[in-house]
């Protein structure tokens, strides 16, 4: 991920993590 600008990398990381948390809350059994 070295070639991904830092701002985008941080935003992407946060987006993916939050998405995982959101989906875990919605359907804990599927994850």
């Amino acid at each position, binding site marked *: 991920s070295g070639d991904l600008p830092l701002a985008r990398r941080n935003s992407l990381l946060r987006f*993916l993590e939050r*998405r995982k948390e959101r989906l875990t809350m919605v359907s804990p059994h599927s994850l």
Partner: protein
Amino acid sequence: SCASSVTATAAAVTVDASKTMPFFNQETLQQRLQTLIDGARETWTYAIFWQSSDLDFSSPSVLGWGDGYYKGEEDKNKRKLSVSSPAYIAEQEHRKKVLRELNSLISGTQTGTDDAVDEEVTDTEWFFLISMTQSFVNGNGLPGQAMCSSSPIWVAGVEKLAASHCERARQAQGFGLQTMVCIPSANGVVELGSTELIIQSSDLMNKVRVLFNFNNDLGP
């Protein structure tokens, strides 16, 4: 044109950088975006900060991705395509593949199965991800126009979004958004989008002015 306003800004800046060029703080940017959306009365789907890169004042002003906060929408059933249609299935496969690659790019590992990635990737999630790849040069697009004119732009209604001269606004409408707002601040432009129809409110403008005046310490 944007170029002349950039030159004027440059002149102001060189007079006394400490007073006129506000201190921009990347660390608290995410917190400010989150405070703006989570504290709003209206239901916003996301907030993005487009950061101005006026490094060399003779070069064109570029707005690029600064940070973003995706909150999501309440009604998930607003899909363009029916879930059983071949087009929907193909589109979802494509989006999940991209998400898997992004996951590997970020985590630096080849993620075999990650159930979160295999869940449906909604239209507004996809639009938020696409936004990370965009930038606006010299007053182009709604963010660029807001920055250049130093005045907010509030587009409410699918017809207005669809008829906009800005490709990003038309794209947003295609992904189910009904409202798009661009509010200029000292170092860039705050953009908010919603799947709901939200009428213009000065309350939100004031919040942006306070939250994104980076000389303000956020405090407790």
